[in-house]
């Protein structure tokens, strides 16, 4: 079973921006919240949020001059590199946003 990916964000203090701390595979939002807490609760977070990766949209990606994979503009609609490099499969890499990329 390849469960949907939920990105996990958290902040330590009131007013501090949310930061991306990781992701979890979970079949639904309820378990995503439980799994996010048990997986990423080592630090003293003030609050933690989960977002289904399908809800994320690529708003901007600049090309760089370095020869990294991200320097190559992906085909139209391919947002696989949104959070993680493409090709990571079920380990947080699939179920990406953007529509038509899968």
């Amino acid at each position, binding site marked *: 079973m390849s469960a949907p990916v939920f990105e996990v964000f958290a902040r330590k203090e009131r007013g501090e921006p949310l930061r991306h701390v990781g992701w979890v*595979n979970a079949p639904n939002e309820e*378990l995503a919240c439980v799994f996010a807490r048990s997986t990423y609760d080592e630090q003293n977070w003030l609050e933690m949020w989960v977002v289904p990766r399908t809800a994320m949209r690529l708003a901007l990606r600049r090309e760089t001059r370095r020869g990294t994979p991200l320097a190559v503009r992906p085909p139209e609609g391919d947002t696989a590199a949104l959070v993680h490099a493409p090709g990571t499969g079920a380990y947080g890499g699939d179920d990406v946003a953007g529509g038509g990329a899968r």
Partner: protein
Amino acid sequence: MTAEAALARLLLALADNKRLLGIRYSDWILGAPSIEAGIAASSMAQDEWGHSRLTYALLADLGNDPRALEHERPAEAYASWEGLDAAWPDWFDVLAANLLFDAALAESYAALGAGGYGPARSRIQKMLDEEAYHREHALGWVETLRRGTAVAVLRDRLTAWLPAVARWFGREEDPGWAELRQRGWIGWGPEEMRARWLATVAPALERVGVPGVEPRGGAWALVAPLDWSGWDPTRRRAAPGGPDPDTLARVRGDRNRALLVE
């Protein structure tokens, strides 16, 4: 029986069951349905062990040696529920325990926390806060599985577990409850614990079609009367025996005795 002896008996049952439940959760840290599920099992196991340690420590205030309690008792001295005696065959038992027995323990701690025994009151709220996550975990899985074919297995497992967990609370006439109530050390007795527990678990049981509960008179009730044959009110179980040899060795730390630090 003195109130102190009754309290020690209640605390021992809570501590032993927390310790054993932690062991049973830990059995499935590896081999869970997913990495995330295993991490969640690990987290719950740690909580249970922490709670058991705190509860054994409460017994020290009542003149007991926590080290002897944790490391030196035979299986027959454990006041642990029979469903925890041996490893569970699969994840469905983890979920049945998580939904039913974990919640039963939480209700018992809530009753103790609502009483007037100060050392317990000061420690129980943190435990109950952590138990709220265990409940969310159980309900999350129920919601996940009830939409798929695996719900039939979960339903069967919960149906099988329900009467024995419901019985675990005991009876009002069991020795010790009257003394605890008279001293004001518990907020309420086993009948109300069972009723409160049913109120928390029955809606989930109904959602997956477990036939053992029904609404009755504005509350949830068990459909069938409980079977008290063989019931041992001291050890809070109906089956003889205790944790199996492998479980006992792990619970007591037998194989690592040489490393035990004072």
